[in-house]
């Protein structure tokens, strides 16, 4: 089966406008395989027919489903390990040193997918800085991943992806074939829907923002726009943690790169932001 050119163009445009995710030509297979379940669900035999229907009669709810279906939600516990080490060994001690009276930290886990990132942060900080009160706002574009994040239940295969055994036994209980994260950990995280192309979410100003493995899907102008918005809700001297293939260098010079161990974190210039 090959996808009609106008189907691909329509879907790529829709997804770019609504999420800024770039679907380059050559990603036809992705559109086909991700939309086939939606097409079948709508009682159609193929993606071309399904999209033809969408183009004839605009249906916002169905559009959202299309956009959600084309997001990549790949994530894991303590993904890449080093950012979480940088958080506990450098970022948080640095913030505490500069603001000794602060016993509260506000974090934003942006594009949080199914929640592993936010829960990993809470678990890591409970170990490294138990005296702190930590509040995380975790957001994503996709209602589907947010529902899973809020439920806090993960399959065995998901649990196997990077969750330290010590934390599994301490913070999770088995529920049938899944594992459920404890109330205590969940209390620290608020999940809400948010599109990075829109105004920042409530819950700020933030001391630390995790914005990992999402900028890679955007073009340069969108990256700049998103980083500017993030800047507006980060405290002066606050930190930004990006994915391994992402940087602010050459994108937004309000951030200073701070090498920590094997990776880097980014710090909002106090001068600029003041």
């Amino acid at each position, binding site marked *: 089966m090959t996808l009609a050119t106008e189907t691909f163009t329509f879907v790529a445009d829709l997804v770019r406008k609504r999420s800024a995710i770039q679907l380059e030509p050559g990603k036809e297979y992705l559109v086909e395989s991700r939309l086939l379940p939606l097409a079948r669900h709508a009682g159609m035999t193929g993606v071309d027919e399904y999209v033809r229907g969408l183009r004839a009669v605009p249906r916002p709810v169905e559009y959202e489903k299309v956009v959600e279906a084309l997001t990549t939600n790949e994530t894991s516990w303590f993904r890449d390990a080093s950012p979480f080490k940088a958080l506990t060994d450098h970022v948080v001690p640095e913030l505490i040193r500069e603001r000794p009276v602060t016993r509260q930290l506000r974090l934003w886990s942006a594009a949080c997918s199914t929640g592993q990132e936010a829960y990993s942060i809470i678990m890591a900080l409970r170990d490294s800085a138990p005296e702190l009160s930590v509040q995380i706002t975790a957001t994503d574009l996709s209602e589907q991943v947010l529902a899973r994040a809020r439920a806090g239940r993960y*399959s*065995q*295969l998901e649990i196997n992806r990077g969750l330290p055994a010590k934390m599994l036994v301490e913070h999770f209980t*088995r529920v*049938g*074939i899944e594992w459920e994260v404890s109330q205590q950990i969940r209390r620290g995280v608020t999940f809400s829907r948010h599109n990075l192309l829109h105004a920042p979410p409530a819950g700020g100003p933030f001391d630390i923002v995790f914005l990992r493995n999402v900028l890679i899907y955007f073009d340069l102008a969108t990256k700049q726009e998103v980083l500017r918005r993030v800047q507006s809700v980060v405290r002066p001297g606050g930190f930004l943690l990006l994915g391994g293939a992402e940087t602010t260098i050459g994108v937004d010079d309000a951030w200073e790169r701070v090498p920590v161990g094997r990776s880097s974190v980014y710090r909002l210039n106090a001068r600029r932001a003041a």
Partner: protein
Amino acid sequence: MSAIGIFDSVQLTAIAEEVFAAMVDGEPGLLLPWWDGPATVTDPLHAWVDLHASYTGRVLLTTDAATADDLARALLGMDAAEVVSEADLVDAFGEVANVVGGNLKALLPEQGKLTMPLVSRQPPSHEGAFQLDEVLLAWRGRPLVISVWNL
């Protein structure tokens, strides 16, 4: 206490799907519920593990020998031309039964113990036993039956 009502076929299917997606196929979607009318296994090979708790249960996998052969090939990363030895076939199919059985054991409210897997062309004796559950699955379109027994 007995195993009745502890496993349901939805969980059984979900566990088998995870095992195949992770270790056999490297991707989900190749092990599915059977949809195509009655399935017949004509040249059966059986693999099972027994589960000892306050009662004894058994998890039994049955498929055609040729399917088990391909299953072993997939697990061992062999290509289609390579011949699977009897020892590899027995070990690989037994290990699939072992992993499925281990994950089912974790659903018990009490700590049980799993026996080493056994593989045979003859089905194990089920005298005095009764079947608790059975799911009919299709791996790459070929039948695989998983049944759970109370011994």
